[in-house]
């Protein structure tokens, strides 16, 4: 037990823990208090719509972590994470559908869309979703299982780089088409919606929304710590090595297949978790979650914040989606220009994302300071480290 505690404590330096603690306090205690305990007219009042919105962003943050784990650290750009996210969402959505009971439009025990399609009984793959724990475990296991099988075949034949990205995009496209069909059994075009309650709590209640927000926030923190643990471990170092020089990893006697497969499956599982938390907060899940564009957008969250940093991924997810919320309301025509411009700008000018700016500035300052002090002195190890930090800030070739 003490060993585990020590391990967790070692994830961060004390300063990092303090920052994380303050953020948690502000987000998970302060914000709900500002929402619930303040007069609605006050400037510091957090409006009710902001709670599920931020809860949504937390879910996106979990997705960004998953994306960073597989792309930022392992060098595999997935364009299929939207599928894993949506599968988690569908698993939760199926449970919520079963929870409607006979309160649907048709007053039937079956979900409305099945009545509409004139189905007489529940399809076999809907069995068990009455139980929350079954649905919750499916939300994690189904994406993970799909990722494992798909990844096994892809990594085994050493599909990598853009080939892998393209194949995952095709997977996304096929999955979307599949879920668009009415006969597939997940509500077709309209998806699953009109949810009423979860574990007996009405989804319309503000308190339920706050609770979901808190759970999402806690899940984000836990997911962050888990990812931090993975990338800090020996396993994580192998993942980074695979990203930088897969052939050398192989020649050193490692089999990249299992490492990649692990990171890939964990990543999919996190996406499933995020999807399952997302659906009760937005109240709908439909095949448009599987659009290829959604999956690519997930990559830009990570790129904006900074790849291979975890913190940057979450930051990017919140910033990009915040901008999206503002733009799609204020200037809907302009949003695609902004998003498209972001893709181009970040890849061309900010290869390490927003966090890269600070890092580069810091490295430059250190370098300048060293140079002032070290005039005439021979090269020191610190100086070469600072130099390499600068060169690392330049785009690296894949």
């Amino acid at each position, binding site marked *: 037990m003490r060993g585990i505690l020590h391990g967790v404590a070692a994830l961060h330096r004390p300063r990092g823990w303090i920052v994380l603690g303050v953020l948690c306090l502000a987000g998970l205690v302060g914000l709900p208090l500002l929402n619930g305990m303040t007069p609605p007219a006050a400037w510091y009042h957090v409006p009710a719509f902001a709670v599920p919105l931020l809860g949504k962003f937390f879910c996106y943050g979990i997705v960004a972590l998953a994306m960073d784990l597989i792309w930022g650290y392992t060098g595999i*750009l997935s364009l299929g994470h939207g599928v894993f996210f949506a599968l988690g969402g569908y698993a939760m959505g199926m449970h919520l559908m079963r929870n409607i009971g006979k309160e649907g439009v048709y007053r039937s025990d079956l979900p409305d869309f099945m009545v509409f399609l004139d189905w007489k009984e529940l399809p076999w793959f809907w069995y068990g979703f009455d139980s929350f724990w079954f649905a919750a475990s499916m939300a994690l296991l189904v994406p993970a299982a799909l990722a494992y099988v*798909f990844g096994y*075949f*892809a990594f*085994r*034949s*050493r*599909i990598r*780089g*853009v*080939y892998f*990205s*393209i*194949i995952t*995009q*095709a*997977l996304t*496209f*096929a999955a979307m*088409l*599949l879920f*668009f*069909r009415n006969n597939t059994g997940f509500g077709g075009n309209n998806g699953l919606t009109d949810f009423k309650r979860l574990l007996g709590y009405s989804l319309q209640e503000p308190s339920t929304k706050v609770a979901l927000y808190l759970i999402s926030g806690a899940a984000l923190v836990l997911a962050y710590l888990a990812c931090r643990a993975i990338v800090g471990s020996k396993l994580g170092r192998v993942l980074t090595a695979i990203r930088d020089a897969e*052939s050398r990893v192989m020649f050193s006697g490692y089999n990249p297949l299992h490492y990649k497969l692990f990171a890939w499956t964990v990543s999919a599982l996190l996406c499933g978790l995020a999807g399952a938390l997302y659906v009760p907060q937005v109240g709908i899940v439909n095949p448009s979650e599987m659009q*290829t*564009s959604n999956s*690519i957008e997930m*990559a*830009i969250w990570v*790129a904006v914040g900074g790849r291979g940093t975890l913190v940057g991924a979450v930051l990017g997810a919140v910033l990009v989606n915040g901008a999206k919320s503002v733009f799609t309301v204020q200037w809907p*025509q302009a949003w*695609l*220009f902004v*998003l*498209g*411009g*972001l*893709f*181009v700008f*970040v*890849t*061309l000018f900010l*290869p390490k994302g927003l966090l890269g700016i600070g890092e580069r500035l810091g490295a430059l300052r250190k370098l300048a300071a060293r140079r002032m002090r070290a005039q005439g002195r021979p090269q020191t190890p610190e100086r070469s480290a600072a130099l390499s930090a600068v060169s690392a800030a330049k*785009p690296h*070739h*894949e």
Partner: protein
Amino acid sequence: MLPRSLRIALARASACAALLAALAWSLPAQSAGLKSALKDLGSDDTDRLMSAIDLLGNSGDPAALPILQAYRDETLRTARDGRVFVLSKDGKQAFDPVSRETVPAEGLPLAAPFVSNRVRRALAPAIASLALVSPDVSARASAAEELSKRASPEDAARIRTALAREAVPDIRKTLLAALARLDLNSPERAVRLAAIQLVEAEGDVQLKVDLLRLTATREDGSFVEPDAGIRAAAVSAMKAMDQRQKFVNLFANLLYGLSLGSVLLLTALGLAITFGLMGVINMAHGEMLMLGAYTAYAMQNLFRSALPGAFDYYVLAALPAAFAVCAAVGVLLERGVLRFLYGRALESLLATWGISLILIQTVRLVFGAQNVTVTNPAWLSGGYTAFPGLVLPWSRIAIVLLGLVVVALVSLLLQRTALGLQVRAVTQNRTMAAAIGVRTARVDMWTFAFGSGIAGIGGVALSQLGNVGPELGQSYIVDSFMVVVLGGVGKIAGSVAGAMGLGILAKYLEPFTDAVLGKIILLALIVLFIQKRPQGLFAPKGRAVEG
């Protein structure tokens, strides 16, 4: 059995002879019979009127048709001397169909002939049988069409007479079908049997319903058709027709697959070449298709307003225009963005995705978010009837041909020109090519422009198949990438094989599953395929090392 062409020729010759003989025979009869019949049209006695109509209907005289039609339309007038006139629309001119003279109607002692429901009922078949032997082909065709839809048993003799004279194959076919439909209900066993055989040999799918009726059972379990032999013949005829339909579908799917493959090929060629050359993935390539299609749309509108006479040729103008537009966009893209991302495939994927979003939104703002319609020119609409039941649309045939031409051009360009040589050199080893004086940046630019231009041509092709919308490219980009994955990078043969294979397979899978399951099966097949050949169908041989 004579060869088919010879049989047709013989049938035509004999039909012509019959027509001539009939004309020769009817000429002397015309004067006497027709004259008294025309006179009887003015009679008040319904019986005489009816027999006159009958006589005219069976006369086969070309002049009788306008008379009876005018009678039906109530523009016929009779004079007491036995002459008849057709009034013009304004009622001021009177036309004599026998002498072919037009005279002023005023002052003529004209009377409208007697009309009753009984007369009207008699007029319709008389007009039909006259139309069947009319010298005007389109009149015969529409009359035959009318008959095949609702022929009554009394029409059988008339159809047989018409068949004996008819030489145009299409009309013969319609008549035969009408006759067969009648004969299927004939009380004579031999006639029914012959009709079944006729349907089996000639008839189209519509007649299957009539065969099906022969094998049906009544409510009490007894067969509609009492004769077991006939039922068996009907069943086997239906089987044969199904077989033929399958065969027809086989061919139709082949063409549909080839045309889909051609569009994919036009898209994938540029992708494969530029990926091999520069190591960048262009997600905005699908948008080149879209831009090409919108160029076709703009050209169509331009021709419609500026050159309506030459409207049919707007497609020919759209092809170079689309090439130019997309090549220009390609140059901008390459110079502005992609040249900074060489060898960084994943980054180039994201950056070009951003570009594609910007292009889509731009087009949405310029042309509107709704789909626009691009009209096929006359020479691309319709289709070629290869054999009964199989119509191959001209647009699809043209797209396959276009694909062939473009592939030939591209391979000529790559194999026979200086630029092609340089492209191949840079693809193999960029540093070495640069060292011996190839201006790699320029090669990149031209190649990228060329690849984008080809996709633009593909867009024009696509505009002829369906509606054009801002998201047009998105639906093709995934498939085009699959072609690149299948075919390997930088190999034209690979792209051709991959595109055609994918296109044809997709179209052949569709009937068995639906389109969606077909796509999923294809994806699974591709993933399995890559297990065996990770480098694609046509992997570069030798010491090609990954980057």
